[in-house]
């Protein structure tokens, strides 16, 4: 299993994602100007501030040359994981429904959050049980998940809400406590918390490997 981790100018979590992926498989960095995914089996679009988050989070990164390939890969059923800024980029690219808005507090928040696995049947969550709790750090200013109500109803009906903030943990004001959603086919997952930062007991949790490792 080989992971490709996209690096945009302004990415900052791509090395952690690389190291996390290397714990469960092979991994290499994919440069934003490349138009070749180098035969990887899964793509991680990492956290950070791609292109400085200018204009709107993820708005410019989605047009990077590599993203055309990531879109083709995703539409063919390839496994894609968008973390934090990566989630924002995938939403902007239309690979995932919805958008991320500023936290209701308007503040940057960095804390460990408890997540509840809502859908444990997609490739990224198949190592989990439905209802299981994961402890994973989140750190962002723009993480309030939003989609119009009819879209949220549809996501719930299709089992596309994959992760929710556990009761009392929704610190950013996300609609219906949504922390992570997948596309209709289930091969593309986006979430605001950072599984790549929860891969070693030394830093408090290895729950991130439950997600990243499941794909391997």
């Amino acid at each position: 299993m080989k992971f490709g981790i996209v690096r945009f100018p302004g990415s900052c979590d791509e090395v952690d994602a690389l190291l996390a992926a290397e714990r469960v498989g092979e991994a290499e960095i994919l440069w934003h100007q490349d138009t070749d995914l180098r035969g990887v089996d899964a793509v991680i679009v990492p956290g950070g501030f791609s292109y400085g988050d200018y204009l709107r989070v993820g708005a410019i990164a989605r047009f990077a040359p590599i993203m055309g390939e990531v879109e083709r890969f995703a539409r063919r059923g390839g496994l894609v994981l968008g973390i934090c800024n990566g989630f924002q980029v995938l939403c902007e690219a239309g690979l995932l429904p919805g958008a991320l808005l500023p936290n209701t507090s308007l503040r940057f928040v960095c804390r460990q959050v408890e997540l509840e696995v809502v859908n444990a049947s997609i490739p990224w969550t198949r190592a989990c049980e439905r209802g299981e709790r994961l402890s994973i750090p989140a750190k962002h200013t723009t993480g309030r998940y939003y989609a119009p109500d009819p879209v949220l109803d549809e996501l719930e009906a299709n089992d596309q809400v994959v992760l929710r903030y556990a009761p009392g943990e929704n610190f950013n004001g996300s609609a219906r406590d949504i922390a992570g959603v997948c596309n209709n086919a289930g091969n593309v997952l986006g979430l605001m918390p950072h599984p790549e930062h929860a891969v070693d007991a030394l830093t408090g949790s290895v729950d991130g490997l439950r997600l990243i490792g499941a794909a391997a």
Partner: protein
Amino acid sequence: MLIRPKAGILDPQGQAVERALPALGFGGVSHVHVGRLVELDVEDPAKLPEMCERLLANPLIEDYEIVEGAAT
């Protein structure tokens, strides 16, 4: 292009400004929304709506308004 949060979407930035104004003695202010202004020169203004739809605004969360005027 004037880009603002869509009606009905919580706009905490607008709310914060709305709370700050009375604190400075500016009463009678409501419905404050904070958006973006994108200023540009364009050869073919017919392309502006597509520019907004594809890049400058996210139609899911933002409305845009095109205001044309001579370059200053």
